[in-house]
């Protein structure tokens, strides 16, 4: 319990340091863009595949369930709204945690056990400024783009099933999709992404730089970081959804 409280305090201090550097404008943009590339490219293929499959499955289930009520023509709306409001932000955040988050945590953990973070400090450079700030900022830049990609690909996956399997005309599917998604739907999903980006970047960087215990520690802390991200994404999603529905309930 004592260790948990100390750990939480250190994590809050880390976030404070990150904000301090950002507010003071001490951001190494070349490092940020390197991280954007690494996190983005690394996650893009998995997000694309997972989203296409999710959209297709939603359309398949929609065809069966909505067919029972004679409302098969609303498959496009089901797919689009489910993806934009809920599934794409959460799925993408989970995939991002497992790929980019694990990468970040493992990389920082390895540097920590090999004294590279301490070497940075000894050379008069704060590792938070050099390693953590760029990684956390990159999360805020990459995750929204990945979610938009996920939404588009998911809708295309649903389109493919709706048109080829459910016999929905292509132009009708397009019309229904475009008219189903309002600004508030997009915003409801999008606001979550920034909460997830903060949590994933924060947890993975904190776990990474606090790693001890050699190669065994790298594995242990990386696994713990990813597991904690999964839990935090799912739990925070409940609260953010409730908040969003309270303020923009009928969207």
């Amino acid at each position: 319990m004592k260790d948990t409280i100390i750990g939480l305090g250190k994590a809050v201090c880390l976030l404070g340091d990150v904000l301090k550097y950002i507010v003071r404008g001490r951001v190494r943009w070349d490092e940020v863009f390197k991280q954007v590339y690494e996190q983005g490219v690394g996650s893009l293929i998995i997000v694309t595949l997972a989203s296409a499959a999710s959209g297709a499955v939603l359309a398949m289930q929609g065809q069966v369930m909505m067919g029972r009520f004679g409302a098969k023509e609303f498959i496009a709306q089901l797919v689009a709204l489910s993806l934009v409001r809920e599934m794409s932000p959460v799925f993408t955040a989970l995939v991002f945690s497992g790929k980019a988050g694990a990468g970040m945590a493992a990389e920082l953990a390895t540097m920590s056990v090999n004294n590279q973070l301490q070497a940075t400090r000894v050379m008069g450079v704060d590792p938070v400024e050099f390693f953590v700030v760029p990684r956390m900022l990159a999360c805020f830049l990459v995750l929204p783009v990945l979610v938009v990609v996920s939404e588009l690909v998911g809708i295309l996956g649903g389109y493919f099933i709706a048109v080829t399997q459910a016999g929905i005309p292509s132009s009708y599917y397009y019309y229904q999709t475009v008219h189903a998604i309002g600004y508030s739907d997009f915003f409801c999903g999008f606001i979550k992404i920034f909460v997830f980006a903060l949590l994933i970047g924060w947890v993975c960087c904190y776990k990474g730089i606090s790693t001890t215990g050699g190669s065994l520690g790298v594995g242990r802390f990386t696994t713990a970081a990813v597991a904690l991200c999964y839990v935090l994404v799912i739990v925070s999603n409940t609260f953010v959804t409730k908040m969003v529905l309270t303020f923009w309930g009928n969207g």
Partner: protein
Amino acid sequence: MIRISGLVKMFNGVSVIEGMDLTIPTGEILAVMGPSGTGKTVLLQHLAGLLTPDAGTIEIDGQDIGALNDTELLLFRHRIGYLFQEGALFDFMTVEENVAFPLKEHTRLNPTEIQTKVNEFLELVDMAGQGDKYPSELSGGMKKRVALARAMVGDAKVLLCDEPTSGLDPMRSRDISELIRRLSKKLGCTTVLTTHDVINALRTADRAVVLNEGRIVADGDEALLRSSVNVFVKEFLRV
């Protein structure tokens, strides 16, 4: 000059350094010897400002390290070169990028001047022509040479070497020891190295101290240490 007065450090109630007093004149090479777990690395980390003493003071060139805040410590460390036991090179950077790192961070040299200085230091440590390699492509001895170049390239006034010969074969140990001595004298650094490698420590250093359970039990040049009547010192030097 480095002046350590009444330094005490404890971890979880266990005393690692117990009231150490030590003065190291500018330009001297001091070897801190002793078996594992006697507080050698802890002492070095105090000198680099990575640890805070529980009691006592450490002054480097008249500046009390314990009185510095985090920002001042980062600035203070520009004057320190630290050679880690395993080198601690950035594995995502090439050899050249590693050596150039302190220069890019703390000087206003243009890229050509940085390249010239990097080449000069790589040549000093006999690593000329290896600049494009990554640390994973280097042997243990080569890593230490590059790490030494990185530690000294920023005109460090104090060089701290943590077990510079550990993990190296006897020939490489001798080479790196001679290299540290040659570079320290050439650049006029005050050097503190920790080791349990008696032969190379005495080969490199102007003076040596022997630590046992956080206390200095012998202090002097090789002749003085060898004439010590302290049982622990005699046993340590004999091994």
